[in-house]
């Protein structure tokens, strides 16, 4: 074997005549598949036709973090023409088909992540063996990039496990553990690492019968049931994903319904359709979002800050959930609150979180042991990071930091989870100000990936770096933000929420306003969002921001809060809720939504975003876009508010904004930042 020629693959034949093919992609810590990797693999596979046949072939990864993470996104981005895209896809299909047709048995030995193209490669092997470890993750997450699997995944997976389960994985992009992959039939074995070599030899030497579909799985691939099941899956999908914005899962589903899994022509259909998708604007923007995520993930990477003890003060919803998340991610956390019942409630939410994420009883137990209730605040003295999450009142927070100034370690990083108060208002103690950052988590903590890392006027850069590093350690996305009222995300969101209430007051029904936002691609309409956040919280945030930036609070919001209708949590806000579920009012078919509604909502947000850039709240439009996408769910396929401006054309949007100012008042007056936007 010409091992020397290969850049990415290592090919060794052992004494048992088993060929070990190890992917160790050059100059990277993560295996991804690009054209070079494919071509090398093809050359190696073709060499078996001439030389002596091996007993079997194993494909594995030399990388610590996993098998293969998927297709190489970098290469993906360089593709501009239809032909280049189609070539890459067909080449992948060709190589994988070649692999699938080898006459001797093949095994994919999988550890860590095995995603997208990685799983498609594994599916082309005769057997799949996974290492039993919580880090082993499998899935076809292509739809999260706006595409669908293109290297045979949409055909081989339903062939293997039946259309029902396969389509669920493909249209949701869900990632599954080794154990559930085994239960679903995606892999043939889950073994402890110590047994993996014995398992590989067993499969290659004995070549056991391959998995066959059970009766239900077989039926699910029949033409008639594909049609019935397909409609049902589509209906479920439509409840979650808007086809107009994200067509990929719908297309994958239709191909399965139309083509089935027996016919090899399905591969060509898959290739043609993904080629179309790859060049679409949506996918470009989704890839951009993927890159933005990578950028945020990389922040603080070079900082060595590895605390063991985290102390959280305040066991409300935010404090309790932050503490639980940190314990989940391996930190020892003391959770302080004078109110024992608040701690008790936090712990019960924490247990639910641990159970959902860890599943194994011994891991759940370990996480519980790391989360230590601390009524008296004893944990303050040893903590390397202290996060304050008490009520949003300057005096109360200031009192907390006065205690910390005395009791905390002198090198401890101090953080506040305030969502609106500028840091300098929290402590007069210079030593505290030097070490004080904001760590602004979003609610619900477990679901929201973003954490704003806020730098105060006096904060020393090394402590900001520690804050970024910590956010990375707890596997969230840090966004560096300057200390200013509302910071970035809430400040931009607030005019949008307030405008939605103004629209409501002007007689436009709530559901119509929300629908307009949903049609734009927001994950939830602003009225329902306000209800979900809590109207008291909205009012408080709105009032404190209007103190700094002007603007008025709609009377309707005040009235509801005065009446105690605080939104979802009290069962009544703008909408009514039953057991936390919204009761949507019936739409009036004759009502016509004024055409400028969506502009009034979105341009409120964008105008504020322009102001934030002008004030350098964040250092770049990219970071601003990242903040709004990961902090509020601003539609990823639109690439973020500033990217939206770029795509729509800045002068066109400015015209529309000026028009709104004429029609609806000075709250729509263009920020002075638009001028420099035009200049750049």
């Amino acid at each position, binding site marked *: 074997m010409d091992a020397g020629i290969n850049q990415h693959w290592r090919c060794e034949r052992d004494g048992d005549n088993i060929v070990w093919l190890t992917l160790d992609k050059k100059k990277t810590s993560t295996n991804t598949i690009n054209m070079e990797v494919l071509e090398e693999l093809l050359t190696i596979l073709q060499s078996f036709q001439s030389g002596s046949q091996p007993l079997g072939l194993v494909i594995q990864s030399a990388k610590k973090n996993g098998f293969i993470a998927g297709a190489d996104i970098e290469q993906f981005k360089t593709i501009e023409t239809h032909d280049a895209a189609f070539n890459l896809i067909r080449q992948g299909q060709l190589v994988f088909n070649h692999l699938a047709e080898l006459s001797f048995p093949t095994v994919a030995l999988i550890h860590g992540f095995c995603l997208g193209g990685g799983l498609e490669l594994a599916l082309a092997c005769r057997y799949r063996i996974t290492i039993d470890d919580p880090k082993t993750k499998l899935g076809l997450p292509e739809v999260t990039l706006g595409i669908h699997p293109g290297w045979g995944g949409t055909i081989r997976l339903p062939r293997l496990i039946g259309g029902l389960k396969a389509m669920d994985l493909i249209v949701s992009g869900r990632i599954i553990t080794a154990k559930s992959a085994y239960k679903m039939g995606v892999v043939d074995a889950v073994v402890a690492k110590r047994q993996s070599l014995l398992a590989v030899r067993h499969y290659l030497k004995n070549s056991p019968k391959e998995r066959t579909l059970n009766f239900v799985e077989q039926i699910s691939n029949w033409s008639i049931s594909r049609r019935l099941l397909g409609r049902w899956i589509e209906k479920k999908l439509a409840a979650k994903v808007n086809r107009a914005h994200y067509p990929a899962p719908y297309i994958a589903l239709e191909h399965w319904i139309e083509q089935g899994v027996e016919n090899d022509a399905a591969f060509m259909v898959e290739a043609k359709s993904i080629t179309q998708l790859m060049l679409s604007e949506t996918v470009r923007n989704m890839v951009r979002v993927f890159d933005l995520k990578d950028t945020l993930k990389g922040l603080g990477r070079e900082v060595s800050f590895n605390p063991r003890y985290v102390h959280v003060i305040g066991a409300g919803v935010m404090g309790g959930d932050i503490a639980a998340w940190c314990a989940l991610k391996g930190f020892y956390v003391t959770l302080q609150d004078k109110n*024992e019942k608040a701690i008790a409630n936090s712990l019960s939410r924490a247990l639910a979180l641990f159970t959902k994420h860890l599943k194994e009883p011994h891991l759940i137990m370990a996480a519980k*042991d790391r989360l230590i209730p601390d009524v008296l605040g004893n944990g303050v003295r040893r903590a390397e990071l202290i996060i304050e999450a008490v009520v949003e009142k300057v005096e109360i927070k200031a009192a907390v930091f006065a205690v910390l100034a005395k009791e905390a370690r002198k090198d401890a990083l101090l953080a506040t989870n305030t969502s609106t108060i500028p840091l300098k208002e929290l402590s007069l103690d210079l030593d505290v100000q030097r070490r004080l950052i904001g760590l602004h988590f979003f609610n619900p903590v477990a679901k929201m990936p973003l954490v704003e890392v806020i730098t105060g006027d006096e904060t020393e850069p090394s402590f900001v770096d520690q804050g970024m590093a910590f956010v990375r350690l707890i596997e969230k996305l840090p966004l560096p933000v300057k200390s200013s009222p509302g910071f970035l995300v809430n400040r931009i969101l607030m005019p949008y929420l307030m405008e939605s209430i103004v629209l409501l007051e002007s007689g436009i029904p709530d559901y119509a306003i929300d629908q307009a936002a949903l049609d734009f691609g927001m994950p939830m309409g602003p009225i329902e969002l306000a209800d979900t956040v809590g109207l008291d919280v909205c009012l408080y945030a709105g009032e404190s921001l209007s103190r700094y930036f002007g603007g008025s609070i709609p009377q309707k919001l005040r009235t509801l809060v005065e009446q105690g209708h605080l939104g979802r949590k009290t069962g009544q806000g703008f909408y009514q809720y039953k057991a936390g579920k919204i009761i949507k009012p019936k739409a009036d078919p004759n009502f016509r939504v004024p055409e400028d509604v969506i502009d009034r909502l979105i341009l409120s947000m964008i105008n504020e975003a322009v102001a934030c850039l002008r004030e350098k709240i964040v250092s770049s439009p990219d970071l601003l876009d990242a903040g709004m996408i990961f902090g509020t769910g601003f539609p990823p396929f639109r690439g973020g508010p500033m990217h939206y401006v770029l795509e729509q054309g800045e002068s066109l949007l400015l015209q529309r904004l000026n028009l709104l100012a004429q029609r609806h008042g000075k709250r729509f007056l263009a920020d002075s930042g638009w001028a420099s936007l035009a200049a750049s």
Partner: protein
Amino acid sequence: MASKKRAVYLVDGLRTPFLKALARPNPLSAADLAIAAAGPLLARQSFEPEAIEEVIVGCVGPAADEANIARIIALRLGCGHAVPAWTVQRNCASGLQALDSAAAHIMNGDVDLVLAGGTECMSRTPLLYQNALLEWLADFRMSKGFSNRCKSMLKFRLRYLAPVVALLKGLSDSVVNLSMGQTAENLAYQYNISREEMDAFSVQSHQRASAALQEGHLAEITPLFDWHGQVVGSDNGVRENSSVDKLATLKPAFDKPFGRVTAGNSSQITDGAAFLILASESAVKQYDLPVLGRIVDTAWVGLDPTVMGLGPVYAIQKLLSEQKLSLEDIDYWEINEAFATQVLACLKELETGESPLGKIPLDRLNVDGGAIAIGHPVGASGARLVLHLLDILKRNGAKRGVASLCIGGGQGGAMLIERVSGVT
């Protein structure tokens, strides 16, 4: 000889509230209870958990998945792989045994910093299958062929399914065939202690325990969270409004129908954990630890199992004679209230028995109540007595205290502690 031994300092301690075992098993296991006490205890120390050199835990009945529970607790506390841990079992004095073993290792110079205490989850003691059922099952499994199987089947008796209550077995002495309650009845008979005396003593225990709570003498308790939204802040067996009249209505629990020992004048079946940190002089200095007191000596004795409740008498006699101290030299006493009659019998024997030492004044004994009110999680009680005695000595500016327990099977243990304000 004593001068060669190194001093042993008690530097900090915490316990869970003691929870009366209700019909339902506690959601927390014995190890969970231990973590609930020792986790917050370690969290407030100036040293890392790995600095602990040994973990010793008293536990009478760990669950089937808690073999060598001390090691489980040590690992779960984050003490690290390198810290050895072992479990001790001396029935009702297991917690005291843990402290004594820890102290001995420090005295010897083997270690400098030890976490020791006890934990017990009596509400989780299991129901067991009878041997008769296991025998039948074995026969059934071994019988081959349909007809043999049918024959085996016919030998099954429904009574085989009656469970064995492990808790009752644990609280009985199989050597003399008496339950612990019956040994207490022996003492009531031998020392002529009336039901009224027992009940009055019990009411006092409840009153003292609730007063201690109200006056804030229970800082040793860290609230216990069940991870399902509930929290308990204090011992829940204490009945503020207990009265002799109410206790008089209870039926005898062990010698029916004429006995005098009732559930009301016995210690409660309880879950809980108590932990202390013990340190040598060098550890105190190295980590700048506060000093609450020191363990001076411990004495252990054996006696007739049918009157095991007198254990404290002989243990105290041995302890005081070894230390050349008289009864009056001891400022405060904690004698575990396994049964009211048993404590009263100890007092009588100490005062007027074969080798009398004198009278322990009631205002120096169990001044904040005892196991009758608070409960007796067997593995943890010894550690609780010492932990609480430290508080009593401190707030009264007193010097010496003795904590003593009777031990099922016919033993007694007593520990002398001394309040010191720093290392000498």
